[in-house]
């Protein structure tokens, strides 16, 4: 001390900084204050922005699903191959949209650039001497398999392939023709002469099937199988002719499905003959179906990818989808009209199916081109393209470009399309859809299949129903336990006990759900399966036992009763619950023997209730357990904070404590309890791990307690890592995440607002 004190004799030097330094200090402090203000603001706003980004990003990923389809005529090129005036019989486009192909009636194939129309390459198939091309047929677009038919009755199947090479790192695509049955045309049977009016080719498991029909209604079919001689390496082609029943009218179109089970022949009046060729030696007409309205005729028909369904266009402009549907009683498949599409203004002239999905382009006699999608049964766009009737359309395998040729034959019109998610329509996601191979319209979620031709089934209904089912059963268990527990804990329980009970239950909220899910799936599910009667006996025994004990307690001598103060009922009940639980478990086999013929699970099956080991009941139990702490904690707060003078007033007026609870406490606290339930529901809706582990994850639509379900959240966890980025499936999963986000956000916000109101009301009371 003494050392610091200045000597009295020396002039006093101020310990305070001088003016200049003070000014500087003030400045620095001002700057620091500013840094603090703006730094904190920036960080705070950044965090808020980051959280808001979640919404925006999910919207951003989902938005393309809603984007309208664009389709427009981009430009025109002149039909390449001017020196051969023969009409065009077919058009193609490669998957990089850099090479177009034009098959002409002279047997010449011209490859050109769809950008400029300049010719890249020209090929010629062998046309027999003195013969001309009379017919052209093709297989599904994705197979790139075609067949020429000549006036002498011979046919020539050919395949178009594209070779990719990378000289100097740049991709070069070259088209290549290959002739699986050799380059020489060959006959298909002797009955039908060369006046084919319809021709088709299919590659089956056993070989190539070519079928041709003529003006008289006769149909010839031949199976070519190529066998390579192991020793010489020569390819030997064997031909097997089959005689098919004739139809009485001229054949307009022939179609054979890829499984080689049915041949569809369409006559000039729109009648379809479904010929069973499972055993081609004994073909028979199964049925005759009128495809279009009376008076109209079928002017175009083609398979969608996978050849499971047929698109039919009529002279009246109608477009409809047909497929083989099994009769439920006789199990015989019948060709059935599944859905229709928006009518075209003129007669349908050409149908071009897409390569990898269930969409197709339709051209008509007025020059309109329509873009339709089968699964979602929508007509995405119809635009006028040409003044003349459309004769041919080619779509690229990636569905972004199409070539359209009108009858004027002077020009090819190039259409640009942007149509990445045709399946995601409102009715496709939420309505019943008649999928290929199904007996009736259904809600199905099945996102991926074995091959390209798989029709993905994106119905959100099974997932939503599953989500609600899981949440519902969880709430059924959780809500009563949590609310009753909350009322007791807040209002009746002794303080010292409450200080243990409340934190313990709240601690459970932090218990990882993966552990609950694991226990539910591994321990609880088999346990319940083996001891099903426990469910009933616990539900009956526990309340009765508690009531009996409670009544018995009042009959006890006062000296004993006074040893335990009121507010400890819950503790007294612990042994009761334990004993009753033990009784329920040990009596379980005996109940099964006495009432359920020895096995309750079998009994369920016998009465027609399907039983899965991991089912909604298990999920309900585990998730109910998970929501108890959430609901309990909030509801308990609401009840506990009811102003004391209200309850005391009620008690003073002579109400019993239970009457006070029912008459005063609950009405006052009910908004809080309601918000607790909502928050609990929000948690149950979004819970992932428990459902993933304790339910079978099968997307079914029912509310059976003993079957599993698949929820939106679990579905995301299972499928998102394996989807292709940016695809329809990917975006639909984002959509379901967005649905979850909005749903829980709305629930929680509503709950929060209710709670804030309640807080204000308590404050004013």
């Amino acid at each position, binding site marked *: 001390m003494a050392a610091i004190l200045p000597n009295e004799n020396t002039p006093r030097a101020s310990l305070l900084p001088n003016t200049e330094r003070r000014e500087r200090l003030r400045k620095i402090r001002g700057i*620091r204050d*500013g*840094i603090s203000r703006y*730094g*904190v603001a920036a*960080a705070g706003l950044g*965090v*808020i922005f980051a*959280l808001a980004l979640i919404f925006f990003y999910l919207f951003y*990923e989902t938005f393309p699903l809603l984007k309208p389809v664009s389709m427009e005529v981009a430009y025109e090129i002149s039909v390449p191959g001017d020196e051969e005036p023969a009409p065009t019989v077919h058009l193609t486009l490669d998957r990089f949209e850099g090479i177009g192909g034009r098959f002409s009636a002279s047997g010449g194939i011209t490859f050109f650039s769809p950008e400029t129309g300049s010719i890249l390459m020209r090929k010629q198939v062998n046309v027999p001497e003195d013969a001309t091309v009379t017919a052209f047929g093709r297989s599904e677009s994705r197979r790139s398999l075609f067949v020429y038919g000549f006036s002498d009755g011979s046919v020539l199947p050919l395949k178009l392939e594209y070779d990719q090479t990378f000289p100097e790192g740049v991709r070069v695509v070259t088209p290549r023709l290959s002739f699986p049955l050799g380059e020489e045309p060959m006959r298909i049977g002797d009955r039908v002469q060369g006046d084919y009016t319809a021709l088709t080719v299919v590659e089956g498991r056993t070989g190539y099937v070519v079928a041709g029909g003529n003006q008289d209604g006769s149909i010839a079919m031949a199976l070519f199988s190529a066998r390579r001689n192991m020793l010489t390496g020569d390819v030997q082609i064997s031909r097997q002719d089959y005689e098919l029943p004739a139809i009485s009218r001229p054949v307009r179109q022939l179609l054979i499905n890829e499984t080689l089970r049915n041949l569809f022949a369409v006559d000039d009046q729109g009648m379809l003959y479904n010929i069973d060729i499972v055993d081609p030696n004994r073909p028979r007409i199964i049925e005759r179906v009128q495809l279009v309205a009376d008076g109209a005729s079928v002017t175009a028909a083609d398979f969608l990818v996978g050849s499971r369904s047929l698109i039919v266009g009529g002279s009246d402009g109608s477009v409809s989808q047909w497929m083989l549907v099994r009769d439920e009683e006789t199990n015989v498949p019948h060709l059935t009209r599944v859905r229709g599409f928006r009518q075209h203004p003129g007669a349908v002239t050409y149908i071009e199916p897409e390569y990898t999905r269930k969409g197709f382009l339709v051209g008509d006699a007025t020059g309109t081109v329509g873009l339709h999608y089968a699964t979602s049964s929508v007509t995405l766009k119809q635009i006028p393209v040409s003044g003349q009737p459309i004769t041919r359309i080619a779509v690229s395998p990636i569905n972004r470009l199409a070539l359209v040729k009108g009858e004027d034959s002077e020009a090819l019109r190039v259409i640009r399309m942007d149509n990445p998610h045709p399946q995601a329509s409102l009715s496709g996601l939420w309505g019943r859809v008649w999928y290929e191979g199904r007996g009736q319209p259904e809600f199905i979620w099945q996102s991926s299949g074995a091959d390209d031709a798989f029709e993905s089934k994106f119905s959100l209904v099974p997932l939503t129903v599953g989500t609600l089912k899981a949440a519902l059963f969880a709430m059924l268990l959780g809500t*009563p336990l949590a609310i*009753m*527990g909350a009322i*007791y*804990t807040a209002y009746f*329980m002794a303080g010292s006990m409450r200080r243990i*009970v409340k934190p*313990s*239950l709240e*601690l459970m909220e*932090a218990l*990882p759900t*993966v*552990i609950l899910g694991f226990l539910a799936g591994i*321990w609880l599910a088999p346990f319940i399966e*083996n001891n099903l009667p426990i469910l009933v006996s616990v539900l009956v025994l526990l*309340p009765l036992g*508690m*009531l009996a004990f*409670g*009544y018995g307690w009042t009959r006890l001598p006062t000296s004993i009763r006074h040893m335990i103060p009121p507010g400890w*009922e*819950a*503790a007294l009940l*612990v042994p*009761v*619950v*334990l004993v009753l639980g033990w009784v329920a478990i040990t009596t379980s*086999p005996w109940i*099964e*023997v006495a009432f359920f013929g*020895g*096995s309750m699970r*079998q009994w369920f099956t016998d009465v027609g209730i399907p039983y899965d080991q991991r089912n909604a009941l298990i999920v309900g139990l585990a998730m109910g*357990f998970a929501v*108890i702490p959430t609901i309990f904690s909030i509801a308990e707060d609401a009840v506990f904070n009811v102003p004391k003078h209200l309850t005391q007033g009620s008690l003073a007026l002579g109400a019993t404590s*239970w009457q006070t609870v*029912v008459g005063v406490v609950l009405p006052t606290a009910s908004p809080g309890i309601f918000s607790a339930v909502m928050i609990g529901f929000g948690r149950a809706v*979004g819970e*992932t*791990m428990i459902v993933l*582990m304790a339910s079978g994850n099968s997307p079914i639509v029912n509310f059976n307690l003993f079957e599993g379900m698949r929820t939106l*959240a679990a579905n995301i*966890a299972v499928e*998102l*890592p394996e989807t292709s980025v940016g695809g329809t499936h990917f975006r639909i999963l*984002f959509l379901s995440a967005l649905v979850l*986000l909005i749903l829980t*956000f709305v629930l929680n*916000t509503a709950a929060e607002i209710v709670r804030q109101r309640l807080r204000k009301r308590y404050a004013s009371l």
Partner: protein
Amino acid sequence: MKEWWKSGSPWIWLNGGAVTVSMIMVFGLLMLILIRGFGHFWPHGVVQAYYELPGADRVEVVGTLRRSETLTGQSMREAGAPIPEDQLVVTRHLFKLGNRDVTGRDFTYFIDDFLGEWRYPKDMTVLERREWGDFYGQPLRVLEAGSTVAEGAELWPEFQARLARTNQLYDEIRQIERRDIGNINFRLERVRLDQRRAELRGTLTPELERQFVERRAALDAEYAVLQERLDTLIDEARRDAIVMRAAGGQEVTIRLDRIVKAWQPNNMSIPSKVVFYVQSFFDFIFGYPREANTEGGIFPAIFGTVTMVLVMSIIVTPFGVLAAIYLREYAKQGPLLRTIRISVYNLAGVPSIVFGVFGLGFFVYLTGGAIDRTFFPEALPAPTFGTPGLFWASLTLALLTLPVVIVSTEEGLARIPSTIRQGSLALGATKGETLWKVVVPLATPAMMTGLILAIARAAGEVAPLMLVGVVKLAPTLPIDGNFPFIHLERKIMHLGFHIYDVGFQSPHAEAAEALVYATALILVLLIVMLNLTAITIRNHLREKYRAESD
């Protein structure tokens, strides 16, 4: 009785019962995990008995009892068991028989009525093997290079000594394989990337190229030396074997380098069992998983969880605290702010999987993809940050736990009595000074609480991690001796995911069940501990400020 009913007391009892049931469920669950989890490590006695079904041969059963249960005779008859028609209930025992490679059945049920007397022979031995699970049997002789070196009484000590030697060799082999060769591979990959980067930038000169070749050659030489050493060690380790008699009398020869450890539970005293128990527990926590995670330890999962949570804490703490300070101290209070605040709070209730979806789409694909194209073009098409990994997992969880930290910090800030603030301001401190020197230090415990709660939540979350960075088996730890030491792009293992994966996706789910219980136990202990800490801090804090503001 009627009066009692009218007074409403029955309802009070029922409400009380609800609390009782909830509490029993909570503690029952904890007990279940505790018992099953801790029970996993106890050396249970090995039973030997004979099992004789009517009309079938007598078979020898050697194994440990997993559990017993009572079922109705009817359901057993339906399952095909030869139970007499008049028998109503049946007890059956689930035994772990081990010897998966010999019999093909690891776990089998035996019906009590057909099981003879249970005996516990002293020499029954359990071998924990590196592959094919446990082996149960009686040791017959120890072999060295095919010839017998020990039998009878001296067998066990001799076997123990040789097993210790082999295990030491094996550790050395692992060390070389995992660390030394792993290092070389890491450096080789780096050389490749350096070279590719130079190629992409067009700065690859012949001089540089020669350097790369040299660097590669040097590493290859280093590798050759290690490989040679490895080969001798492997030969050494393969020297000894033990011949065991399996149930049914079959003799099986097992090389010692295939054995992790061996014990004779029927011959152990209680203290030695306790020692064994503690050892097993440590092996479990510090060991690496084997056999598709169904055996061995969970160290990488613990390590991955902890690393991820630490990285998350580093991200979430400053941002959460700053956001809370902004909301409470700087932002203009009004309806807009109230909306923002409610929204931020409500994000805590948004399903975690939604954060996972956001993390995968925005962080991994969008941001990660951009980072890869900008900074790691040499590694493409193999993604560096454009794939799920530690950093994205931590960032996603940070986003998920931000509301927790914000809520807790705001609560702490709100609790600081305004007198303290006003006092500081009255003494001439600026707002910033008041905030950072007075208010924030006082609110530190609240921030700690928030952080701990965030950590507890993050440690238990699995659903979002399945999308953004957790894998079944990570080949390397996210932290190692190679520069830059913390590898944020690596995939990690996680305790919660480990439970899901081993419990539900593994081929030997039954054998792994005990291990999953033990993993669950570790996770529960971790989280309960963190939460208790948070609760203690919070209560302490409340008391403190209650005293100060009064």
